[in-house]
């Protein structure tokens, strides 16, 4: 699925979502796209997502993290992944540790 298709679909649903709302919601913001769209996305190049995870993992909500994990899971399943630099994975190990430690608590990132 290309980015244009995603944006088109978001734009098509915009009138219905804004009918009862006076102010325009930020449906096309990066955060909204992560929340609503990324979880269903399968991407060929996962590197940008890891870079984003490394940069912003401290401010991502659990919902955003769940979407990122969903996308990465589908995008890496059954594939031989190569070309990821060690620095790209900087966020993953620390996020993973915090997730594991907070698994049975109401922890927040």
């Amino acid at each position: 699925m290309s980015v244009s298709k995603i944006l088109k679909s978001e734009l098509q649903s915009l009138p219905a979502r804004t009918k009862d709302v006076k102010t325009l919601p930020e449906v096309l913001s990066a955060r909204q796209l992560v929340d609503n769209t990324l979880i269903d996305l399968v991407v060929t190049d996962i590197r940008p997502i890891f870079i984003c995870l490394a940069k912003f993992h401290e401010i991502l909500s659990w919902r955003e993290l769940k979407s990122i994990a969903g996308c990465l899971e589908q995008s890496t399943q059954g594939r031989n992944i190569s070309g990821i630099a060690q620095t790209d994975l900087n966020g993953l190990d620390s996020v993973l540790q915090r997730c594991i430690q907070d698994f049975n608590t109401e922890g927040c990132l």
Partner: protein
Amino acid sequence: MLTIADSQKATLGLLRVSINLTNSNGEVCEALNRDTSLVTALTDIITTDPEHYSHAYHQEKDAQTVASAEDAPEQEEREANFDLLLLSLGLMINFVQESGKVKEMVLSTDLPGQINLLFEKLIARDVRLRPAFLTSGICKSCAGIFGSSPRTSYHSHSEWKGISR
């Protein structure tokens, strides 16, 4: 109906991603283990609560009965904990198997000893307390006799003589 929290879904998802990434990739294993903190966290999950290992049995048992609405969240929680356990074990196996460097690092700690101790306890308890219904039966598919070993998930045949599933 309550579902497991976003935090738990995110954790299980990220563990699956890590397993996918570390399959046949020693470099990724090394990148994720610049020190022993991640393998220590995984070992804590693997060894902290031996009761979690019995959740596989509960999952199978619960699947046969219609769970009440009150039981559903509890069952879902048990399943999530069991998934966490399995995925943690899977990731540890990948780390040790795919990278000699990580394997050496893990062997230089007391983590393998902790895991070994846990499995010794689990095996000892299984021998001592194995229920009768797990100890006898014949698999119709392969004619394997289950008089000497417990029926476990690695045996996938579904038809059994003398055992009501």
